[in-house]
């Protein structure tokens, strides 16, 4: 799979996810973007938390990768889109991976399923041996 094709076409910001500190930087960046867009505190927290879960997955299970951040604008509404991509082993069974509590790494198994609950749209593109891309979006509630 060509990872770059699935990613956000006009990503405003691209951040590497190769180290623990990169995950911290990503959280900070996402928070700043959401703040600038006028998201409510609760929605900011949810999106940053989702981003943290997915960024960690990219790092721990995907062997490292990158995050793309893009501002969305549709008529009068604004939102934020994030994509997390890696060239790692991919996920064999997406349905299983999205089950609460399922983990292959000794974690809580809430990363993917939890992130899905915290955002408005959630897409995952993965195949064994072909890497993984997860895209999430959240719209500002007025």
């Amino acid at each position, binding site marked *: 799979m060509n990872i770059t094709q699935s990613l956000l076409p006009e990503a405003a910001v691209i951040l590497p996810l190769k180290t*623990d*500190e990169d*995950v*911290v930087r990503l*959280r*900070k960046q996402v*928070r700043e973007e959401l703040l600038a867009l006028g998201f409510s*505190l*609760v929605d*900011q*927290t*949810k999106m*940053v*938390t989702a981003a*943290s*879960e997915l960024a*960690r997955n990219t790092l721990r299970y995907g062997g490292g990768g990158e995050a793309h951040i893009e501002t969305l604008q549709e008529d009068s509404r604004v939102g934020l889109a994030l994509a997390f991509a890696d060239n790692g082993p991919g996920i064999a069974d997406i349905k299983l991976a999205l089950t*609460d509590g399922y983990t292959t790494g000794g*974690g*809580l198994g*809430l*990363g993917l*399923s*939890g992130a899905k*609950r*915290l955002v408005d749209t959630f897409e995952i593109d993965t195949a064994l041996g072909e890497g993984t891309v997860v895209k999430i979006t959240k719209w500002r509630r007025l």
Partner: protein
Amino acid sequence: MDRIPILRMGQFLLVTIQVDMHDKLAMTLQDDLTARIVKDRAKGVLIDISALDIVDSFIGRMISNTAAMAKILDAKTVVVGMQPAVAITLVELGLTLEGVETALNVELGMKLLNRGGDTWI
């Protein structure tokens, strides 16, 4: 590597998390806390998270693990100062902090620990 300081207050340990921790720092804290509970024969641990604007499943697990280890060592764990947005997000995330009592602030947390963790009074 920087470490999060752990203070001793009588029989209790107090940790105030004021930085956005990267995973290794969180793991180090978990290990440090466990070691200190043993070393100081602490009866309780207060984790002040009032400065944290997010708690994700990794940090949540760190807190639950710490509480589980503390329990084995006969100590109670109280988390204080959880921000409302964090609480809302944790519920939606599906994260329950197992074995962890909560309190609004350090003072109330200490009262909780002094009472042996009873939440009824």
